[in-house]
């Protein structure tokens, strides 16, 4: 006879696990990662490798110093995911120390200072990106023209190493501005917008990813494919990306219709910069976004609106990261006030009222003679 320890129901579990969730997200990120490597060549590969490796080391360091079991946490994939997202938001020719500082900041300050996985109020990748942008504005806004791997313009393996590790200017890469940066500069010089956008904004190139920009932010199309895969796998609900893109689309369309000579077109907003990557991989981060359906809609809408506001009237050309961080800070508030309605209660938590006709009927109802239940003869 075996005596077992009491355990609460359920006695069967869904096969889903945290590491497999993370793996799914990593799979969804793989097309854009591969494309980044293809498009920006060896330096991109160096950066991604550096980010992943250093994130792993920082993770081990933090887990060791907090006395958490290494084997459970190191393989859950969340650190890898953070590092990959960070790498994808870096400029292709960023030096090695940017990658290491960034993943150190993301893992230590962004994640473990708050208590590790699941406890961080801010998205670690975005936090690191903003920290890097504020700290090293020059390096973080040094964009290069895409030069596909194995093409003549592409840096060789050695040159790639030089670019990443020596910040060398030996390789004469074509410097290029991102479309967003260009727009900001030109607008500040008072040039008319329509003529400009025709010059450097080709919607097709922008959605395919044949433009300058961060490693993983150029190809809106591939990001959307990865995102739709995650949506199919039910990793996140449609509400977050839809409300984010929706509110950005709505605001930019309104502004564009009202004054097309000052405000960029909605297509421009959607396909340039980090909007797509954020919509499917940053805004949807479960740890830092609200739990409820209405809360998610609110959160996504807020992110979209802030992105538009910062891009249009802010000091920085790109506003996605700031918008996401600002809304991350709102998440606990949203989760406190926006809750689902509970069964049998109104939204305010009071018991719902029975329909009037039933109460009237009850008033006229005479109960059959009360039975003497429970007594035995």
């Amino acid at each position, binding site marked *: 006879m075996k005596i077992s320890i009491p355990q609460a129901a359920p006695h069967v579990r869904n096969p889903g696990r945290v590491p497999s969730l993370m793996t799914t997200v990593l799979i969804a990120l793989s097309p854009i990662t591969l494309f980044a490597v293809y498009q920006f060549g060896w330096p991109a590969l160096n950066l991604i490798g550096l980010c992943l490796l250093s994130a792993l080391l920082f993770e081990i360091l933090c887990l060791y110093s907090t006395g958490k079991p290494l084997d459970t946490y190191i393989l859950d994939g969340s650190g890898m995911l953070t590092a990959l997202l960070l790498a994808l938001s870096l400029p292709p020719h960023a030096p090695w120390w940017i990658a290491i500082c960034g993943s150190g900041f993301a893992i230590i300050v962004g994640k473990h200072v708050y208590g590790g996985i699941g406890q961080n109020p801010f998205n670690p990748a975005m936090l690191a990106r903003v920290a890097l942008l504020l700290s090293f504005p020059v390096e973080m806004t040094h964009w290069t023209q895409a030069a596909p791997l194995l093409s003549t313009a592409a840096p060789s393996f050695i040159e790639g190493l030089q670019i990443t590790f020596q910040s060398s200017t030996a390789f004469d890469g074509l410097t290029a501005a991102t479309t967003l940066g260009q727009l900001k500069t030109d607008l500040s010089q008072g040039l008319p917008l329509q003529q400009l956008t025709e010059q450097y904004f080709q919607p097709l190139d922008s959605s395919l990813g044949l433009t300058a920009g961060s490693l993983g932010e150029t190809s809106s199309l591939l990001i959307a494919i990865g995102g739709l895969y995650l949506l199919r796998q039910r990793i996140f609900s449609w509400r977050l990306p839809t409300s984010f893109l929706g509110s950005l689309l709505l605001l930019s369309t309104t502004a564009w219709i009202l004054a097309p000579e000052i405000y960029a077109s909605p297509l421009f907003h959607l396909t340039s910069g980090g909007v797509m990557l954020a919509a499917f991989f940053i805004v949807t981060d479960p740890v830092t976004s609200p739990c409820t359906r209405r809360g998610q809609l609110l959160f996504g809408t807020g992110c979209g609106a802030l992105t538009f506001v910062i891009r249009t009237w802010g000091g920085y050309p790109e506003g996605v990261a700031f918008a996401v961080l600002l809304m991350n800070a709102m998440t606990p508030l949203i989760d406190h006030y926006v*809750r689902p309605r509970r*069964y049998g209660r109104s939204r305010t938590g009071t018991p719902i009222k029975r329909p009037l006709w*039933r109460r009237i009927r009850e008033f006229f109802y005479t109960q059959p003679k009360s039975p003497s239940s429970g007594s035995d003869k």
Partner: protein
Amino acid sequence: MKLFGFRGGVHPEALKQHTADHPISTLPLPAALYLPLQQHVGEPAEPEVSPGDYVYKGQLLARSQGQISAPVHAPSSGTVVAIDEFPAPHPSGLPVKTVILETDGKDHWSPAWTTPTDPWSLRPEEIAREVGLAGVVGMGGATFPSAVKLGQSLQYPIHNLIINGSECEPYLSCDDRLMRERAPQLIDGIRLTAHALQAKQATVAIEDNKPEAFAAMSAAAKGINQLNVIRVPSRYPMGWDKQLIRIITGREVPVGARSASIGVCVHNVGTVYAIQQALCAGTPLLSRVITVAGGAIAKPQNLEVPVGTLVSEVIKYCGGLNEEPARLVMGGPMMGQIVPHTGVPLVKGSSGVLALTAREVDDGPERPCIRCRRCVEACPVGLMPVEMAARLRADDIDGAVDYGVQDCIGCSCCSYVCPAKIPLVQYFNYARGVLDCRQTATRKAQQTREMALARQQRLASQQAARDARKAAKTEDKAKNNTKNNIKNTRPASKNPDRPASGDDAGTQHKGAAANIIATDSRVTDIPLQSEQLS
């Protein structure tokens, strides 16, 4: 028929195919039966027999006592060996008072036993009484005495009687088999129950993964007015009575109110079968159909077993265990309780015995929550398990109450979907335990205060009476004096005020008592555990 929306819920793998296609077989009579005196919600039954007595099949062993209780009958003839403490089918395995019956294998019915008169001529309250005498309780696992439920529902006009044939728990198929094999009896039972409730119509809800049961019930119900057999989507927890009410009527039961208050009453098919047996065949609740399943069981099947059979007997009949089970569960895998060992008896509410292998349990190490909100999506009540668990982990019970932990029905959906394998239900059960303790403490304090107040009031009224008597005396004296001296009336006329002021004090006390009653009613507004279970 149009169905209304379903909120939350999960899709566990059904795993019913191993048992659902085999007919119900009957377990040979075991040599000994162990009948706990409490197999239901409420007061335990009071034993009517003493050790050494010979009892017939169907004879009353223990009488129900109190408002909410149910009697226990002898499932077979034999000798009462002892009335003693015996391990209960509960995770703790703590002993409860149990009648131990040694069967003689003859299955003798009591000589006094007669077939009942025409059940259709009984009045509603008589049906409820008969059901109560037969010891019928909710067979879906709630084990709330059915007679009490029928009686309570009679206080309201009942519009719709819903028969819960959804059987949403994985593995279990006993209700499925019951509907396939005994549909005519079930239909009779439904009609009798509807009659007992004076219900206008009855609806049988069957999950759409049981087409055979649906066909059998539809065929049996053909031609009967106001009896619908409908298919509902297969989704756990479809069998939660309030969920069924919502999906069928589109209405929700207000918190703290009974389902009957919105004109609906829900009974399980097993209960309806037991009611039919009690009324038409005159058989008290002596046996029930259970599902014996799980990866560790050699020959999983549905069995009709006498109440009080040991789990070990059942497993032995089903070919024993293939391997050491990781968990031995009584009931379904989602809401069933773990039993400590096989030496515990099956009771009226046991719907199954599951011997689950470690692979089936699939219980990984607990990881930190990543707020994936699957629990929020899965909760059929509309709670936020992620937030409640975060508060309970910090022992912030009030914070969890703010998020509605007292509304949790313990359906385990959140724990089931959790990718971090956090035992959320365990947290919430703990919180509800603490809340229950608090409630009891508040009640006790309230009672003490009330008693103290009553004493004060009593003393005050005694004092008042004494004063009144004194005043009357003085008045008498004064009256006597008036004859002599009219000037003396003044103090005397002032005196009768005193009893009045005493009365004033009395009303004040009454007012305070009324206040206390009012606060007490606020306390009792918290839904009772039994109501949630029913």
